[in-house]
């Protein structure tokens, strides 16, 4: 089983370090959430893991080997990426979208094989979109589109599935649906990494949290170690109270910090 690792990885833009240096390992079968406020670097770290960006310093490793030493297609076969933007303006059918997931498995001129067909069918059934297979992607709802794009990443048959804000554009019902899907994927042995600002939603489903702020890794571990009320106050600038649920998972209730309300009124 494979391990993804960042070793002192940092990203610079315009001479300024916008991320890192950060070191973190993500082991097989885990389901990890990258959390933090906007601009904290969770999307950057996700793109580093996906091999879409290269670190300017330090390195990204897969099983101890430099991620970028892998041929592009092999990297794509091992690490799948589900983008935040699910809007697609062209009327590709769902089956066409899914077939694109086989890009790294097929030669330029080889027709779709039985193996490709099976991977597509299997992923469609798993994500419960078989009934949508003939529909044009731009006629689907947000929740359906998200499931299609997750299915497309399964079509790749990857070891790692990386999702960028998978719940950002969904109502609560579909958001939980998608997270449940992620959880069951990790039970199937896929390693799942979810970048999200909505930690209240994900904590129930993930085994590990990685907390980022200002491009730096602040803390990592299980929920109870990482997300205490003090940390939330400091990182997210809100007061938080933990309320236990019947399932045993606590949820957070937030309140704007009173001092800040006064501040913002005074400045108007």
């Amino acid at each position, binding site marked *: 089983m494979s391990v993804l690792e960042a070793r002192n990885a940092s990203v610079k833009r315009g001479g300024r370090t916008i991320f890192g240096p950060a070191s973190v390992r993500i082991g097989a079968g885990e389901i990890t959430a990258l959390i933090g406020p906007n601009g904290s670097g969770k999307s950057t770290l996700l793109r580093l893991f996906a091999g879409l960006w290269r670190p300017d310093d330090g390195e990204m490793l897969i099983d101890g080997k430099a991620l970028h030493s892998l041929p592009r297609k092999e990297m794509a076969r091992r690490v799948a990426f589900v983008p935040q933007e699910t809007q697609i303006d062209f009327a590709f059918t769902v089956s*066409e979208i899914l077939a694109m997931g086989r890009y790294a498995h097929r030669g330029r001129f080889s027709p779709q094989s039985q193996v490709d*067909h099976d991977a597509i069918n299997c992923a469609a059934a798993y994500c419960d979109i078989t009934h949508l297979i003939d529909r044009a992607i731009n*006629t689907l709802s947000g929740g359906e589109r998200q499931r299609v794009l997750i299915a497309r990443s399964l079509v790749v048959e990857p070891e790692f599935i990386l999702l960028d804000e998978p719940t950002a554009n969904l109502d609560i019902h579909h958001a939980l649906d998608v997270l449940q899907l992620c959880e069951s994927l990790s039970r199937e042995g896929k390693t799942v990494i979810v970048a999200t600002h909505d930690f209240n939603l994900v904590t129930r489903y993930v085994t590990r949290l990685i907390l980022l702020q200002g491009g730096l890794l602040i803390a990592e571990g299980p929920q109870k170690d990482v997300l205490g009320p003090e940390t939330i106050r400091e990182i997210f600038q809100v007061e938080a109270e933990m309320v236990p649920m019947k399932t045993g998972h606590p949820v957070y209730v937030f309140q704007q910090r009173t001092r800040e309300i006064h501040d913002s009124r005074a400045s108007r």
Partner: protein
Amino acid sequence: MSAVAQSNPLANVSSRSRLRLSVFYGFLLPIVFLSLLAGVGIGSTHISWSTILRVAEFRLLPQAWTSSVHVTKADEVIVWLIRVPRVIVAFFVGAGLAAAGVLLQALFRNPLAEPGLVGAGEGAVLGGVISFVTGWSATSVLSLPLMAMVGALLALFIVYAMSTRGGVTPVATLLLAGVASSALFSAVASLLLSVNVVNWQIAQEIVFWMMGGLDARTWTHVWLCAPFVVLGIAASLMQTRDLDLLQLGEETAASFGVDVESSKRMLTLTAAILTGAAVAVAGLIGFVGLLIPHAVRLILGPSNRRLLPASALTGGAFLVLCDLLARTIHPPTEIRLGIVTALCGGPLFIYLLLRQYRGGANG
């Protein structure tokens, strides 16, 4: 349908779309054939079909077989040296522009991208003018399409660099960059023309060429255009799966294993070859690269593997018919081809756009 196919929803999909494809070609291929036939058969001089057939026999069959065929010189010239090359050039120019449109629309992720709109057309015109001014076109006719391709390529690089940041191309920026650089290229072309007005012969050649159109096209024009269009379309067909993924976004394409940078370079080069070849022999003809892919996409869907060859054939037939209209609607004067494509293309394009909005963007 077999039980296996029924149990496999995807098998159903592919067989259904294949049926749709065969129906499409069942209509398209006769239209292509008839348009070519009409292009040769109809013109300002009336020539009977039997005469045309005799000319074709005379030119195409071995001489020993045709010794008994009687063909007058005038008929032979009109059919074989005037109409046939004109129709072939029209077909390949239309096919090239439509295929270039498909490529540019995927490259810019925008159904509005078209050789004329993103600067490639004017870039090709400038390249052609340079080949006249430098005298290269006089030493080798091949320099004209080659310079047009170089011009189109540079224009595409400039417009892409101006309009795209981090793999994202806003529509407004794309159109503005296209309009601005088109204006710049055409200004430089006019400047070169003005400077060379003293040399009347060159200036006359340039003006005649810049006017474009398909009148007085010869077999030379066929050989200057057709091989490059065939090459460009063959190269595009090798890139259809990259095109599909790029059309969904550069980051998505990269995450599925597409070598985005090299893919974009290949695409840009291919689009420049197609545009340059078309502009070199017919000047800048608008609307074909915008209208044809759009219309075909509404029928066949956006998958580039189906869209590209279908658009090329449709574009070819479309331009042959437009040219036929241009030279027969008001004889003996010929209407300029660009006017006809705009008159045919404009309303149809507006209609398609409206339908697309009303139908919930199913294009």
